[in-house]
Structures are given as C-alpha cells and as structure tokens.
C-alpha cells in the first residue's frame, strides 16, 4: 500500500516514450499537468479538463486515455506514451502523421496530439476499420477547424497502407 499526504510532494517514476523519467508532485496533480509542467513534455495539450474534448489523450501502458482524468500518482511505474514518441525527434514522421499532413487533417493543431494517440492505439486493435468505426472512435475528440472529414480520410488511408505493406512481400524474400 502506498500512502501520499497532500502536505508534500511525492516522486513519480515512469517510462515516458521509452525513457525513464521522474519528477515530484502533489497527490492532486493531473497527469496532463505533470507531463507538461513536471516533465516539460508539452506535446500533450490541455483543453476542457473534464474528459470531453480529448486534446490531452495519451497512452498508458499502450491504451489511449484522458490524461486530465488521471492522477500523476496513478502512472507511477507505468509506461506513458505521448505524441512526442510517435517519431524520433528530428527523424521522419510516422506514417499516421504523414497521412495527417497529406490530407490537411489539422489546421490549428490543438486537438491533433490527442487524436494521433487515440488513432495509434485504435489502429493496432482494429487494423481494417470502416469509416463508421473511425468516426465512432473520433467522436471522443473535438476538432473545431477541420470538420473531421480529412481526419477520417487520413486514418482510413493509414490503415489501408499498413495492410498493403503487411501483405506485400519484401524484395528478396
């Protein structure tokens, strides 16, 4: 059993995008604020802070969830993945990110980090989604710029390209 008093800060250790990280926080600190303020990982955005808008969505042990509805203390010892982990710093973007760029699936980009983390989890579980399934999954995110159509197109194209890549034999095989 772990007991943490409100009177002081407590060390939280986690694996953030593959790297061991730690910082101290009060029990009431939300994971969203801990990532941004405690660890300087500002890729995760904070919108409504009550689980509706989806901007703060990250993956906890590989599963997409709201970081504003999670306490930093709850991820102690766990793996957290954020948009910063989708590609290597200055390296090429992931296929999903490239598809978002091709389809103009973002304008202001505020919602994008959360949407990418949802889509990344969802496409691993449902590699061949219908448009209706993609729209259902995206209903957990608010985007006020794009009207969603280009986002849906980017997700469907990523799924399609991944399936093609999985079935095309590698040269020399």
């Amino acid at each position, binding site marked *: 059993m772990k*007991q943490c008093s*409100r009177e002081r800060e407590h060390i939280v250790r986690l694996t953030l995008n593959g790297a061991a990280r730690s910082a101290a926080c009060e029990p009431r600190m939300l994971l969203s604020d801990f990532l941004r303020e405690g660890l300087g990982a500002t890729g995760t955005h904070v919108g409504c802070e009550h689980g509706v808008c989806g901007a703060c969505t990250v993956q906890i042990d590989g599963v997409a969830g709201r970081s504003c509805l999670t306490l930093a203390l709850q991820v102690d010892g766990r793996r957290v993945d954020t948009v910063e982990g989708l590609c290597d710093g200055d390296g090429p973007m992931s296929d999903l990110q490239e598809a978002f760029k091709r389809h103009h699936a973002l304008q202001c980009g505020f919602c994008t980090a959360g949407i990418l983390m949802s889509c990344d989890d969802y496409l691993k579980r449902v590699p061949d989604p219908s448009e209706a399934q993609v729209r*259902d*999954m995206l209903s*957990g995110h608010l985007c006020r710029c794009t009207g969603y159509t280009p986002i849906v197109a980017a997700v469907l194209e990523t799924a399609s390209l991944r399936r093609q890549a999985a079935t095309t034999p590698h040269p020399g095989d």
Partner: protein
Amino acid sequence: MKPAAFDYVRAETADEAVQQLKALGPEARILAGGQSLMAMLNMRLAQPSVLIDISRSDDLNFVRSEGSMLAVGAAATQASVEWRPTLAQEVPLLAQAFPFISHFQVRNRGTVCGSVAHADPSAEIPLVLLALGGEVVLRNAKKRRILPASEFFQGMLMTARAPDELVEQVRFPLVQPGQRSAFTEFSARHGDFAIVSAAAVVDARGLCLAIGGVSDRPRLAQWPAGLRGAELATALNDFAWELEAQDDAHASATFRRHLVRQLGAQVIAQVTETSR
C-alpha cells in the same frame, strides 16, 4: 479546473481498500477508472479528503463467467468487458449498450463497477443491470452482502452502499434460451449523456422495459410478454407519466415523455416482432 487537495492511498488488494474505507470514514472516496470522479474533482463538485485508488488491486481486476452470471470486478475496465470476444453470446444487452457509453478513450479507463457505484440516472450500465435483474456485491471490512440492482439504485447519484462499503463486483445474468434484448438511446451528440435511454428484455419474466435519463434513477416496467397494439401504447404512455420527467437545460419533460413512448416502442418491437 484543478482538484482541491487530497491525500492519496493506493490499495493493492480489496482487503486493503475496505480496511482503508473503515479507517478513513465517509470523507474517503474510491477511485477506480476516474472517468466520472476525476471530472467531478476537477470541477470541485466533489472534494473528498482522501482518495483510495483501487485501479491496481489485482484481485478486483476480473471479468468471468460464474454459474449463471457474468461477474465483473471493481477494477475491471469497461473496455475489458466490451472487447471480451464472448460478450455478445454471454450478455447480449451489455454488448448492445457499449457503443452508446461515452467514447472509446473513456471506456478504456472507466470501470463497470464505477459506473454502477456513481449511479448517474442517465448512465447505460446501471440501466442494463436493472433491466436484466443483475446484482451488486458490496463488501466492508467484515462481510459481504448482495443486493439486486432494483434495491441498489436509490436516487440521483444515490445508492444503498454504506460509507464503509466497496462495490466489489457487479453480476449480470447470462442470457437464457429464448431471451431477447434491445437497447437504444437519444442524446444530443454521440457519446453524450443520454436524454432518454431504453432497454427491452423479453424472457421468462415477461416483457421488461427499463428507462434511463428521465427519473432520478433507472426505472423498470414489467408487462406480459404478449402485450401489443393499443394496450402496449397505453402501458407505454402510463409508464412515461409515472417517471415524473422534469424540464431541464437538455430537454423538456414533454419531449422526454415523447422519447419514452417512441424509444420504448422501438426496443419492444425489436424484441417481440423478430421472435415470432
């Protein structure tokens, strides 16, 4: 939009959780998936002095078929039930309701027992539990007791749970031969709270219609399985008025009664027409 300060206790087992509930008293709240509680903390609608986190209590993280019931432990997420390959064969009404419950990202962390313990009158899982005649297993430091859903839900966010009790598991009756069920709801946007939700079950008990979002708790009507036509319309209308709908920012009482009649007729048609 930040929670007021609280102490935090992580219970590794159900035993630790109920011991802490006993020691800390009514100021403590159980935190499982947090998909309702954390939002209430952020908005300071709830300001408990201490949170007892059961999300890592492994002995509460189970979904299993036991006898004639599907038992779901307090730490089991909604996703762990929703993605269970056999769910549609075990508790089809629950499988029918899941797509209406909030969003993929929320079901990933939200728990089945948490939704039951929270007892929002428009929540889908309490409605399904009531419609099927399911049970809630409550446990304190000394003993367990089992309540039928009809006795557990007592009002808006009010249940029969005593302050020292944990909702340890909920049990959904497995589908019986010949049982049919249907679920639907109306909400402003997909995944929002239901303005009215409706579940129909026809089985040995007769025809059951459960309605959420209207009264201060999910409510159940039971009629003979053969109820049809004008008699059914009258029964639906009487039930719609019995629920004592209120006007609020989301819908008028008149619109809610309309939805009870319409959605009720729709789910009843689904469970009666195709079976004959």
